[in-house]
């Protein structure tokens, strides 16, 4: 058995493990484990409809951002420097 194989084996397995670890830490940091009951109960109500809801909320957010941008543009357009 050559050294390279051992390096390869240890290297790849550690890397894969580290990716899993990072994903887990990311999940903890973004609060995905904060709500114990949601973790267990919310699954029961999870269906296509909720997905639609989530998409709708995203759209609302986008629409709002769009509105803000629009207003800004309006403001800029109407801006007249003081004479």
């Amino acid at each position, binding site marked *: 058995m050559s050294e390279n194989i051992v390096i390869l084996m240890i290297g790849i397995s*550690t890397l894969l493990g580290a990716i899993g670890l990072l994903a887990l830490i990311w999940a903890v940091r973004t609060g995905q484990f904060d709500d114990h009951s949601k973790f267990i109960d919310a699954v029961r*109500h999870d269906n296509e409809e909720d997905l639609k809801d989530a998409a709708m909320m995203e759209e609302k957010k986008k629409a709002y951002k769009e509105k803000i941008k629009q207003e800004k543009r309006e403001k800029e357009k109407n801006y007249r420097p003081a004479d």
Partner: protein
Amino acid sequence: MADIACTHCNLTFPEEVMIAEQQNNKQLFFCCKGCQGVYHLLNSEGLDTFYDKLGDTKLQPAIQSNEDLEKFDLEGFKNKYITTHEDGLCEINLIIEGIHCSACVWLNEKVLHKTDGVIETSINYTNNKAKIIWDPEVIKLSKIIETIRSIGYNAYPYDPKLQEERAISTRKTYYSRILVAVFGSMNIMWLAVAHYAGYFGGIQQSFKDILNMAEFVLATPVLFYSGWIFFRGAYYGYKNNIVNMDTLVASGALSAYIYSIYAMISQSGEVYFDSVVMIITFVLVGKYLEVLSKKHAVDTLDSLMGSTPTEVTTLKDGVKSLVSIENIIVGDIIELKPGEKVVIDGEVTWGQGSFDESSLTGENEPIYKKKHDTILSGSLCLDSVVHYSATKDASNSMLTSIVNLLEESITKKPRIEQLANTVSGYFSTVILIIALLTFVGWYFWADSFEQALIVGISVIVIACPCALGLATPMATLVGISVAAKRGILFKEASFLETMAKSDVLALDKTGTITEGKPSVVKSEYIEAFDPSLLYSLVSTSNHPISKGIKVYLENKHETLELLTIEEITSIEAKGIKAKYKNQSLLGGNAELMKASKLNIETDSHNALFFFTIDDTLVARFELTDTIREGAAKAIKNIQDLGVKVVMLTGDHEQSAQKVAKQVGIEEVYAKLLPQDKATLIDTFHQDGHIVVMAGDGINDAIALASSDISIAMGNGADVAISVSDIVLLDEKPESLYESYKLSRRTFGAVKENLGFSLLYNVVAVPLAVMGFVNPLVAALSMSLSSLVVVGNSMRIKSLKFKDK
């Protein structure tokens, strides 16, 4: 008659009182208009799948109320609870009331999602707190609250910055650190297996280098990321000239790490990376167990603050107006309606009524106030409209000062130095000195710098206190779980130790030693009458005396029915009057009887209740607050443990002495205001006592917060529960005794564990000093000693509570 479940809330009622309705060949029943309204609303919105999700869960009947909605749009409210984002969106944190199950959460989220202008909602399933972000240009907050109310729930605002956020973020960082530590140590373990195999069976240097390198890569993040807490602790210790456990862990792990790098590069000797990660992981897990059992956020204090009104109705030249409480000045006339909470102290100028001052004095009996009487904020107006003039402004009023005192007390809570900290302080100093001496000794004796360094480091590594670090958390964790099974909730692990050391127990009278509600002790039926009449009469009132009579009747008579009585009027602080067919019913206290010119016997220590039909006295009841079952015995047992028991109460001297005599307490302090109780606790502190305080009301909250350990009864005021360290769910006085016993047993186990880890070091350290320790021995002994500590802690479970 068969009872039928309401289609909306699932509560069961007799069929004839239900509102029946026919819809698409389906027979529907509703218990009230509120439920019916919600059902149709959900149906028309296409949200009726809610009922499938709900299953058999019972809800509260929906109450439609749209009062005080305008307060949500007022400026004062906005400044206090609403945060405005940079992009113009508003955010608020709400506690939603009435949530019973996940289906309720689903419904609330769903409805809010459908509302225009609501940009984001998330509701926590565990504590029912919601975060809502909305566009103030599209929708007003009052409209959002109205939407929540329209489906049968209610919402209060709260301020999350208080404590919650900090607690959550500490827990999260610990969690990430532990994940890294566990990941690192698990991987190093399997590399170490190859290492040890090579140690015994021979291994080529080239393979050893690879293993060393891999262990180095894994150990580095564990030491510097997960172990950061220890470096920080050691640094603070160094700044304050204290040697603590963190110093030992940090110096041990770091020196082993540096030496291992040296061994790896110079290709001589063995590496200690596995010991490095193991020390960090074990001690970190111990610390995490402590953080985990720390008091969680004060959810309920939030709801108290949220339910206090931000505006009051003032009268100026006959004009009523809503004014924010901050703008009230002394002398303003304020109008109080029935059910309103007083937020500003004052003096009655017009009207009369009963006030519930239980949050200030702990006594449940309402107090009758007439013109020129003072009203204290925090009390509740029960039955009539009263005008009063403000004698203090908002910031000086009773309620505000109580809340301020409370917040102060929580942060100033005395901390008893933990035994493990004291021990590990000395221990760390001794070990560091021994390690230094060993190094110097070997350097001169063996005349080899390298040899001396290895032995010196191995002393620190082997002594490194895995067992010591686990000694306290393991024992207290087992102690806490045993307690929880018996209905005693310790909110923080260290309380077990403090409790075990305490020598004074202060008890509140009402609600702690006694039941806290009056019950009938003597009854006299002067003439025969239908008990259902009395039952119907007292059912119309929420007064504690009426409730006491009601409970008594329910226990005594089997066949009671609610008769439809008419013209019910409650006479302030005296009683109730009503009509049934042609009979006039009257129930109330002695004063009421005298007013209707009845000759009655009023000589009694207890509260009296009389019942007349058509001006003839038919029944007489004596009520008093009864002492909890087993109180005297539990107090006796606690006194036998060598703890001094005292009683603190807001009640007057006489009744306090009476109760004290019955349960065997000698020291009694009566007529105390909330602040006085806290001052008394402080006096005990100054005398060097460690004080445990048990209470149940808001009036006890400050005293609870300033005592070393505070115990609350499970059904006490929410604030009392949230500031307390231990909650007794079953409210039995025996639980007080049990918690004493359990905490002493646990503390005993902590001592045993500490003793064992010290003993282990007495054996292991000399071996290390003589240079007999290699990485394998270090790893084995560390695991073994930790196992012994865990095993010893488990023995707490076998503690017996029953008397011999």
